[in-house]
């Protein structure tokens, strides 16, 4: 693992500091050298400055962030990002960002793979040769000859990575590349990064999902408040106790730990077929009951029929591979899918599709799609039915207080942070008296502290009598807040039983 100890330095930051236009210091005295063939992990809480470091390397600071003042010296493969053109830098540095949706330009994967070299005017046969090499080296045959719009998020991210690598940069800079990916896509990306390292390139990864890259890294630097406060060898990283790790705001390092389901014990209750379920249903007489529920698309069920009971006050976590239909499952319960089969009932009443839409609240993975008003207050007023006087107003005020949103009444929803938007969306659900909450990947891209906050909130909502179904690939989160686990199986693969 001690690759490239004596090799040349490809990235060197010395005394780098960044100050925003409002005078906030977001990086302070960063010294970091990356050698050829080395893999450096930049770790730390959200907002600590991890992304800012990557932006200094790939030239987005100062090219794109004109408000940020950069000091100190940055050298990337002998170039100074603030003095050279972005396209010159692009020949040496490749960047992969968080959101797989907004990083590709072509509609077919082959054109996308060619993109970087095409803009440089490299002869077409040479481009094809390099694509073949890259596809071979990364084992990315599944990406060739595809229509990009039919690819999953994980495949898109692998495509972006492969396309960046085709251009053969010396350094790859990855800014939270796995934030929106499920376990198998994360593994695919991991193997692709390993292949790039084996080819002698340098990789810089800003990430808080440590398990994903801990075994690839030659070292990890911990950033706090814009400064490098500690450097770890991989051994030190693995040796961190849970407690130390959580104090530093980091996610699990060991894949075995990050990918372990601990909730199983209570899972029997989720399955309607098991003996417990009938008793539970009679006892509680409330909450969500699904019987032989599935969603058909083009006449084919997307996932095997599910029988499950989620009484009020309980949280059901839904797991499943990419494409197993997790989001479709939630959309079906919410009444957004035309072809739903089987029965959905809530508090003992079977629901037609339209009633589902009036009973359930869905917090989407991209919460931006569901905030419509020009201020937090109006958003709440819209949810409560247009009234914002007297009793309604005091209800809104109280709820904003409990969800840690007070003082933000006049702020535009789009100006809120991701977590605040998520809580606002939950507030709207509660104000319109929805007690069936469906959450789609509520912790994607969150660091440890924020993940724990969401887990606490979910627990609190359940304790207040909500019935919660959440889809997630974040098992650390699932283990913290779910009572039951359901693993969705593809329709062909037998029945979607409870996880054991």
């Amino acid at each position: 693992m001690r690759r490239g100890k004596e090799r040349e330095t490809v990235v060197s930051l010395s005394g780098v500091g960044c100050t925003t236009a409002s005078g906030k210091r977001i990086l302070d005295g960063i010294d970091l050298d990356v050698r050829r063939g080395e893999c450096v992990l930049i770790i730390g809480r959200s907002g600590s400055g991890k992304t800012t470091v990557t932006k200094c390397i790939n030239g987005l600071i100062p090219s794109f962030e004109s408000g940020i003042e950069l000091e100190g010296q940055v050298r990337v493969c002998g170039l100074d990002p603030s003095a050279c053109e972005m396209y010159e830098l692009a020949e040496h540095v490749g960047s992969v960002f968080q959101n797989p949706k907004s990083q590709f330009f072509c509609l077919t994967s082959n054109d996308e793979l060619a993109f970087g070299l095409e803009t440089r005017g490299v002869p077409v046969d040479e481009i094809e040769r390099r694509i073949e090499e890259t596809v071979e080296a990364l084992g990315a045959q599944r990406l060739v000859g595809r229509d990009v719009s039919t690819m999953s998020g994980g495949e898109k991210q692998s495509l972006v990575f492969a396309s960046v690598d085709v251009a053969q940069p010396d350094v790859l800079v990855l800014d939270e590349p796995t934030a929106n990916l499920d376990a198998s896509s994360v593994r695919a990306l991991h193997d692709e990064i390993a292949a790039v390292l084996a080819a002698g390139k340098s990789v810089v990864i800003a990430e808080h999902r440590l398990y994903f890259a801990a075994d690839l890294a030659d070292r990890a630097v911990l950033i706090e408040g814009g400064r490098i406060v500690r450097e770890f060898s991989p051994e030190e990283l693995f040796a961190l106790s849970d407690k130390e790790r959580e104090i530093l705001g980091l996610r699990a390092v060991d894949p075995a730990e990050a990918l372990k389901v601990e909730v199983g014990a209570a899972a029997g209750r989720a399955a309607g077929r098991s003996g417990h379920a009938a008793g539970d249903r009679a006892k509680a007489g409330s909450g969500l009951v699904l019987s032989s529920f599935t969603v058909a698309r083009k006449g084919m069920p997307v996932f095997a029929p599910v029988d499950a009971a989620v009484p009020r006050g309980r949280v059901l976590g839904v797991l499943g591979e990419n494409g197993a239909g997790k989001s479709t499952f939630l959309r079906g319960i919410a009444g957004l899918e035309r072809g739903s089969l089987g029965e959905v009932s809530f508090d003992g009443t079977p629901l037609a599709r339209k009633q589902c839409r009036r009973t359930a609240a869905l917090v989407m993975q991209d919460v931006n799609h569901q905030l419509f008003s020009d201020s937090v207050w109006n958003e709440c007023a819209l949810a409560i039915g247009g009234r914002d006087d007297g009793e309604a107003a005091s209800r809104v005020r109280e709820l904003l207080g409990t969800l840690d949103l007070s003082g933000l009444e006049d702020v535009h929803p789009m100006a809120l942070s991701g977590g605040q938007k998520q809580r606002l969306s939950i507030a709207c659900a509660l104000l319109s008296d929805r007690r069936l909450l469906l959450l789609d990947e509520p912790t994607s891209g969150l660091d440890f502290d924020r993940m724990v906050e969401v887990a606490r909130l979910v627990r609190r909502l359940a304790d207040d009598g909500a019935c919660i179904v959440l889809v997630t690939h974040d098992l650390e989160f699932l283990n913290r807040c779910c009572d039951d686990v359901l693993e969705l199986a593809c329709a062909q693969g037998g029945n979607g039983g409870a996880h054991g």
Partner: protein
Amino acid sequence: MIGEGMTAAGPVPQGGTILGGRPRRGALALDPRTLMGVLLAASALAFMGKGVTAELCLVVAVGLLQTLCGHVRMALGFVAAYAALMGVLYVVFPHVGGAAATMFTISFTFARKIYLCLMTGALLVSDSSVHRISAALAKLKVPQSVLIPLTVTFRYFPTLKEEAAHIRDAMSLRSIPAGSRAECFVVPLVMSATSTADELSRAATCRGIENPAPSTDTERLSMRAADWAVLAISALAVAAVALFGGSA
């Protein structure tokens, strides 16, 4: 379970077929520039007076071109629709009369005028990908400042459709008063478009889209004999209509 399906090997095209290859549909495989030329000819023809026979011949000729390019159903559809259009104009309307007929006569006649353009345009769009068309435009020396926004716009359509569907779903889950529906739809759409545009341009810049070197023609476009022949026939058609169009 994990990882299954992700490693399943897809077909890797052999050397020389990754880029610019496309399934051959019909007897003719034309360069997009040829079809652009035909489109230009069709536009010129739209402005010229021509007799019914000439018009019919032209429609059949373009239909033949569509068939030769492998778009048989498209050709049949256009020819059938043309027959229906003429039927309505020459048989139905003279018998019906009245204000309604006059109103429709105008729009139907207009459709008839631009019919050739519609046919050629449909052929161009369905015969070539956006990437192929922009490669052709690049070969025609259209500047990058026009091409890049064009490419990105087309690239954004599928995303726009997806986002719009999400927003519609989110709206149907909330009881939104009819009066504010339009606003509630547009606000998040514009917001998401703005952030997507920003992220896209960052990613594009980091991949060197601003490189002033002339881009590679990865579509391997070339004008063959068939292309020149089609262009020559189009030019001849324009000349013929200009000279004898009215009476032929």
